[in-house]
C-alpha cells in the first residue's frame, strides 16, 4: 500500500480552557474518501483548520506524503495541494463559472507588446470547461453567472475550483447541508469522480446517508478525542451514531495499512 497522503499524529489544540483536540491521530490514504463525523463541538472543524493551517496545533505533527510539514497559514497548505471547500462561502455569484474557478489565479496574456497584462478570457473558459468535463459536471457554458445556477451546481463548481489546480486533498465541510435532496446526489457524484482522479477527500457531514454512500472509512470524534476509526464495510449507522453520542465507548479498527 502506498504511503498515506496525510498523517496527523497526536494533534492537540486548546482554546483557553477548552481542549478542542486531544492527541488525535488521523491518516488519509491516496484516493480515499474519509468521512469525519461528530456532534457539534466535537472538534471536526478544528482538526480541519489545523490541517489547512488556519490554526496551529499546540502539539503533534503533520506529515504530507511522508514529509513532516508545518502550516502557518492556509497559503502553505494550499501550495502543497490541500484545498478546503467552504460551505456557502466559496463563490462570487456575480461572476461567471470560469471567473470563479480562476478567482485569485487568473490567466493573463501580455498585450500591446508586453506593455499591459490583460486577462486571457478564452484560456480561462477553455480551462474551466476542461475541469468541468473531467469531473463530469454539466454546466452548459463557463460564461454563465454562478448565481443563475442551482445549489448543487454551485457546490460542484466550488469543488471544481479547488481541484482544478492539482489538489491532492480536498476537504469538504458540510457540502450538502444546504441542498435539496435531488441536488445532493450531484455533489456525491463529484466526490466519487475525485476519487477516480486520485484525489483524496475528507468529507465532514451530519448526514449519515451521505457518509455511508461515498466514504471508504469513517472517523468519529467526540469531545476532542478520536473514538472511532472504522472502514465503512465493518460498521453501520447505528454503531456510528452510538459512537457520536457516547452510547458506545470506542471502535478503533487497526486495519489501516500504515507503517
Amino acid at each position, binding site marked *: 500500500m502506498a504511503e498515506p497522503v496525510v498523517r496527523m499524529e497526536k494533534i492537540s489544540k486548546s482554546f483557553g480552557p477548552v481542549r478542542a483536540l486531544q492527541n488525535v491521530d488521523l491518516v488519509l490514504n491516496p484516493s480515499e474518501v474519509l468521512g469525519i463525523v461528530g456532534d457539534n463541538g466535537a472538534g471536526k472543524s478544528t482538526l480541519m483548520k489545523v490541517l489547512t493551517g488556519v490554526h496551529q496545533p499546540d502539539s503533534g505533527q503533520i506529515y504530507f506524503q511522508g514529509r513532516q510539514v508545518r502550516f502557518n497559514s492556509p497559503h502553505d497548505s494550499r501550495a502543497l495541494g490541500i484545498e478546503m471547500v467552504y460551505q456557502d462561502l466559496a*463563490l*462570487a455569484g456575480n461572476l461567471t463559472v470560469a471567473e470563479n474557478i480562476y478567482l485569485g489565479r487568473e490567466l493573463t496574456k501580455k498585450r500591446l507588446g508586453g506593455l499591459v497584462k*490583460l486577462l486571457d478570457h478564452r484560456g480561462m473558459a477553455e480551462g474551466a470547461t476542461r475541469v468541468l468535463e473531467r469531473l463530469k459536471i454539466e454546466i452548459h457554458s463557463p460564461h454563465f453567472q454562478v448565481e443563475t445556477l442551482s445549489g448543487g451546481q454551485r457546490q460542484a463548481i466550488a469543488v471544481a475550483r479547488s481541484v482544478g489546480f492539482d489538489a491532492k486533498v480536498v476537504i469538504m465541510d458540510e457540502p450538502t447541508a444546504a441542498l435539496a435532496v435531488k441536488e445532493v446526489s450531484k455533489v456525491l457524484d463529484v466526490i466519487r469522480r475525485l476519487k477516480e482522479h486520485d484525489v483524496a477527500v475528507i468529507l465532514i457531514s451530519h448526514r449519515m446517508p451521505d457518509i455511508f454512500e461515498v466514504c471508504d472509512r469513517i472517523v468519529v470524534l467526540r469531545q476532542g478525542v478520536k473514538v472511532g476509526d472504522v472502514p465503512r464495510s465493518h460498521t453501520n449507522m447505528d454503531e456510528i451514531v452510538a459512537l457520536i453520542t457516547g452510547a458506545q465507548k470506542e471502535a478503533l479498527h487497526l486495519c489501516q495499512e500504515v507503517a
Partner: protein
Amino acid sequence: MSKSTTAPAYVPARRLSISLIMERFGVALALVILMVVLTILSPEYFLTGANLSNVANRIAFIALISLGEFLVILTAGIDLSVGSIMGLSLIMLAKSCHLIYGWYAGWYASSSMAASLPEPTSPVALGVISMLSILVALGTGYLCGLINGWGFTKLRLPHPFIMTLGMLNIARGAANLISGGSPITGLPKALRVFGAGNIILFRTATSKGIRIPVAFIVVLVIYFVLWVFLSHTKTGRHIYAVGGNPQATLYAGVNVKHILNLVYILSGLLAATAAILYAGRINSGTPKAAMAGYELDAIASVIIGGASFFGGRGTVVGTLIGVLIMGFIRNGLNLLNVSVFWQEVAIGIIIIAAAFIDVLRRRAAREA
C-alpha cells in the same frame, strides 16, 4: 451528443429572456427614449450641436466623480466625499497655481540667472506651473482617498458611510480654510484647456463645424481606460468579486483590503481629475464646489446607470449612460422652461425607480 438528453435541466430559464435583455440594454433604451422625447418636445434646440456640446461640457466633471463612486459602489461601499474631495482638490489646484506663480515671479525678478529662464508669463513657465498644480490636485485626491480607505480597512469603522461622511466635512472645511471662503480666480490657459477647450471638426468656409469639448474627450478616454481595467485585468475582476462575495474572494487568496483601499484611492483621484475639468470651465477655484452636494448627483447617476447598492453589479458604460440621463433630464427640463425645483422632484423619482428596478431584478434572479 448523449449529453443533450439531460441538458435542458441545466439551462437556467433566465438566459435569453426579456429580463436579461432589459438588464443588458434597459438603461441604454431609457436614454434613447429620453432623447427622442426631448427631440420631439424641443425640436429646434435639443438636438443642435451647440446644445449637445453644452451638455457634454456640463456633465464632464460629474461623469468623473460618478465613475469613482461607481467603483466604490461595486464593492458594496459608498463614498459620500467625492464632491467635497473634488472641491478641495479644486482649491488646492488654484491655490498652488497662484502660489507657485508668485514664488517663481518673485525669484525671477531677483535672480541673476533670469535672462536664461522663461519669463513667468511665458507659455513655457505657465505650462510647467499648470503641470505642478495639477500634480498637487491629484495628490490631494489621492491622499483623501487613501485616508477614506484606511478608515474602513485599518480603523475598521463599521461602514464606509461613516468614514466618507467624516471626509466630506473635513474636505469642505479644508476647502474653506485654504481659500478663505472666497474664490481664487484666474488660471493659466494651459490649465483651462482640459475644462474649457474645444476641438473643432469639419470646419469649412460655410459651416462653423462641430465643437467637441476637450473635457468630453478626457471623460471618454478615462472611461475607456477604466472599462479595460475592470473587465480585462485581474485587479478589475477582483473588484467585482469583492462586491459579489468578499469572503469567497478572501478565501481565493485575494488581498481584499488592498482592493478596498484601491477603490477609494481611485475615487479620490477621479474626483481630483474632475476638479481639473471644473477649474477650466469656471476659470477659478471656488470653495462652493465642495458644498454643492455633487456626491449625491454621482450616487444618483450610478444607481440610474444600473449598478446595485449591494455591490458586484453594474458597468462602466451603464454609469456613463446614467450620467447622460441625469444631464439630459436637467437640460431638457431647462429647455422646456420647467422650474429647477421640479427638476429635483423628477430626478428623485427616477432614482427611486432605478433602485426599485434593481430590487425587481434581484427578486427575479432569486426565483429563477
